[in-house]
């Protein structure tokens, strides 16, 4: 390993690069119950999250049957989107919101990576990003965009917007 690569390796861990390459959850759900659009004005990166919900139960207990993302962005924002979609698909609205909150707390150094729930085990690979405050927003964009989407009443299929500061 060349000198200086260790920092690069610590930031861009293999897990991140694998998620970045993964296309499993890329795409847009046409008949989605949730559409949310997020923009990071610092870099202009954009992401669109769409999700379909199961029909059973009250709003908070409906499940994210499918969760997809599209958009363009850096390795960190794309990897984070892919990991989020994989981890949260199948969970209820309430559970997804809680895990998204846990991920954000970890990125903002309010909690440690070790404290992340097992379901977000892979997200510990984002630990290295925390050293670069300007890049933390890249990692949290997808999650914030989803949280915004989960706020809207699903039946309305309303489109929501997350605006990073």
């Amino acid at each position, binding site marked *: 390993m*060349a000198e*200086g*690569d260790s*920092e*690069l390796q610590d*930031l*861009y861990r*293999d897990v991140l*690069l694998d998620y*970045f*390459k993964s296309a499993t959850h890329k795409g847009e759900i046409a008949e989605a119950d949730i559409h949310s659009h997020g923009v990071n004005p*610092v*870099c*202009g*990166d954009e992401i669109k999250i769409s999700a379909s919900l199961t029909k059973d139960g009250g709003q908070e207990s409906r499940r994210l049957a499918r969760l997809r993302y599209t958009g*363009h*962005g*850096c*390795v*960190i924002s794309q990897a984070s989107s892919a990991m989020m979609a994989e981890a949260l698909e199948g969970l209820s609205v309430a559970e997804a919101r809680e895990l998204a909150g846990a991920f954000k707390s970890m990125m903002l150094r309010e909690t440690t990576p070790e404290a992340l729930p097992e379901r977000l085990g892979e997200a510990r690979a984002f630990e290295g990003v925390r050293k*670069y405050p300007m*890049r933390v927003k*890249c990692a949290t964009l997808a999650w914030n965009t989803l949280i915004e989407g989960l706020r809207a009443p699903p039946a309305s299929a309303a489109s929501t917007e997350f605006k990073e500061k």
Partner: protein
Amino acid sequence: MIDPAKIRKDFPILSRRVRGKPLVYLDNAATTQKPRAVIESLVSFYERHNANVHRGVHELSEEATNLVETTRAKVAALIGAKHSHCVIFTRNTTESINLVAHAWGRKFLKEGDEILLTELEHHSNLVPWQMIAQEKGVKLRFIPVAHDGTLDVDSARRLLSPRTKLIAFSALSNALGSVSPIEKILAMARSIGATTLIDAAQWAPHRPIDVRAWGCDFLAFSAHKMLGPTGIGVLYGKEEILDAMNPFLGGGDMIRQVFLDHSTYNVLPYKFEAGTPNIADAAAFDAAIDYLQGVGFDEIERHERALLGRALSVLGSMSEVEIYGPKDLDRQACLVSFNIAGLHPHDASTAIDLEGIAVRAGHHCCQPLMAKLKIPGTVRASFYLYNTLEEVDRLAVAVSKAARFFKKEEAIA
């Protein structure tokens, strides 16, 4: 010839280390570093001269007033303005342009009029015009940018009409480094009697200005991009136009007489300088101009040409690097904008930052231009008088290291 080793000693911050490595500062288009003379001038103002201006008859107030007015005269001489009172101090280029949009645009633009801009404008020479256009029912038109980042002025002639009231353009692109055909655009404006505004935010730090030779009506730039402090900007305007304009902000200093129901306004430049101005930074800007003139703009240009030439050749020889802009030293200046194949500019610049090198990544406040080039953004290295050829080479090494890292990882399809 500029000896950067000697110049660097005048800039305390350049001896700093960043991420364990000597700082290489290549983000000069965003803001430049400050020489000791400017920093000392700020300290000296607060330690020795601090008082409000134009208000007291006491000695300190007179000294403070003199310091601001000395800088104003120096700026006027720097840009070839006939009168000091045609130099208005603002916070920055953005405020200067907004001042014109409000104080000139509100008064003189009418529904159906047109404003001609270019596709490569910084948001600060676009958004203020969008706002006034919406308010007044004015139409915005744009000189197209060719793929190499140059302005297609010849094809812009067909965009001209008797309704074109203003042509506002950047002299030097902050995103691509392309130099605008300034005189050609000004001649075009003259042929139809349009008012002209030059955004010289990137030009003023690097090249000489002669507003009388150019014959432009307005010119705007920021001190912080030319070794000066933040918070002080310049708007130059022709006297008769400034006189005819509405005031911008209302309040103290900009008035002559105030009654309960109306006021009369002060003379230039104070008509446009409401409230307590940025006295300390205006005073310290003087030292920045002295510094630049001490080195000389000819020398600065020669040095920057060498730096850009080296950057274009070393980065240009790397197969994984794509450079945007004219790539020609006669049509491009001071900065180079590029991407590493398949790599988002933010990832590239983080990798470069890990080597202690400060570059800017992103859309550079030029989202419409990035959309036109169909890229999310670029990595931009921008140079100034204290940069060295070795620093350009260090950038090249960092770029190739980043390219290798992400290729090796095969992260990028």
